[in-house]
């Protein structure tokens, strides 16, 4: 049932599966940040290719992620269209040159090579992290996740909150379904047949038992955790923590080098943009 909603961990034995969750987390965050900031097309393509290679190594079945890929394409396309519609001249402002592909007399929806290039860069930025995120989700055992967060410096209580979220999402999903149907049987209308307001009220009525059941659960779970001494000390150990091995240190060095290249390119380009038009 889980896999219907969540992209789940698959238990294979590849290089990426063996890496510590912390290493993968650091890698994902580091690449995300540098990729968010930079507009160097060569660098972005580089990371994208690199992450696609990792994707291949991790032996993830493309079927597992096909739905998500479709959603991402729709999401990216909508955003890129918006950028073009609202700011067709933005590319020219950034790159400071003008190479028109076509223009119309009223100057609406002009398209320049600069704009197209800018949008292409945006597209890379929307997508480069996706393979990395998928690799992270699919090759990291969720049980190891909280331990990894704690290892990279997140307080253990916050890390455990994430573990609780992962633990109880299936329960909340199941509760939501049960409650929703029971309330519909009572006579609340939430289907498309209902008008806007009745539908809002109907939904609030459904969410109410869900929330109250869950609030009760918060009480019981905190008692259960307290009875087993959670929160007594300033630190805790983790059953599922993976210790760093040689491959982790090597990977961290590679990550560091790539990020360093990204940073150095700022200097080379004299800013965040790589400008091929000059």
């Amino acid at each position, binding site marked *: 049932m889980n896999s219907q909603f969540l992209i789940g961990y698959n238990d294979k034995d590849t290089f990426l599966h063996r890496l510590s969750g912390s290493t993968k987390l650091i890698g994902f965050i580091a690449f995300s940040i540098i990729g968010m900031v930079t507009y160097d097309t060569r660098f972005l393509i580089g990371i994208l290719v690199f992450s696609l290679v990792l994707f291949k190594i991790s032996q993830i079945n493309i079927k597992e992620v096909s739905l998500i890929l479709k959603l991402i394409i729709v999401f990216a396309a909508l955003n890129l269209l*918006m950028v073009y519609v*609202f*700011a067709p001249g933005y590319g020219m402002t*950034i790159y400071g040159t003008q190479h028109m592909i076509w223009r119309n007399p009223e100057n609406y929806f002009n398209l320049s090579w600069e704009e197209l290039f800018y949008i292409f860069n*945006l597209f890379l930025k929307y997508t480069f992290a996706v393979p990395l995120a*998928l690799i992270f989700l699919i090759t990291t055992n969720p049980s190891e996740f909280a331990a990894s967060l704690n290892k990279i410096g997140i307080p253990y209580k916050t890390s*455990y*909150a994430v573990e609780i*979220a992962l633990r109880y999402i299936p329960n*909340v999903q199941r509760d939501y379904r049960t409650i929703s149907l029971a309330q519909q049987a009572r006579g609340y209308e939430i289907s498309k047949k209902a008008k806007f307001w009745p539908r809002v009220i109907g939904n609030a009525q459904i969410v109410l038992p869900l929330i109250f059941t869950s609030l009760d659960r918060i009480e019981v779970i905190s008692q259960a955790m307290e009875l087993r001494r959670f929160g007594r000390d300033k630190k805790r150990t983790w059953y599922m923590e993976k210790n760093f091995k040689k491959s982790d240190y090597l990977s961290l060095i590679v990550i560091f080098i790539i990020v360093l290249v990204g940073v150095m390119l700022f200097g080379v380009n004299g800013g965040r943009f790589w400008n091929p038009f000059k």
Partner: protein
Amino acid sequence: MKNNGNNSIKTVVATGIGAAIVFVLMKFVAIPTGIPNTQLNIAEGFLALLGAIYGPVAAGLAIFIGHTLNDFVTYGSPWWTWVITDGLVGFAFGLAKNKLDIQSGVLSKGKLVWFNVYQIIVNFIAWVLLAPSGDIIIYHEPAKKVFIQGITTWIINSLSVAVIGTILLVLYAKTRTKRGSLKKER
């Protein structure tokens, strides 16, 4: 008696369960408003209640975690500027905890009006100022595009909190037992 321990554990659990609820609400419960691509998000209304009960840390982290997880499984990778903004909104809602004092079981009209003015301002700062600025600075997106997205989100989210958040706050307050008040009536 040491009550602090229990409260901090409760905050941890409330954060986790809150995040799970946010995730499920974001993924499965959204009511179309009629305007394409915009929907009334029940999760934002729930956030108001979570903040009023458990305070800024639990509400801020819960929406941050829930939103991140949801972005991960829907879009592959989180859109960080918006996720962080959402976290700040949760934090701000949590700051209203003491003023609302929902555990007392009394929630006057005045308090509700105050909270709604407050939340509209919070949402304005978050979605019209912070999130678009973040998109411009970090992602370097065109201002016009991100401000239009931001203003739409401001209106929708304020509306979600005004309607669903208010309903939840009122109903929750009603369930609070007043101290020593329960007597059987024949």
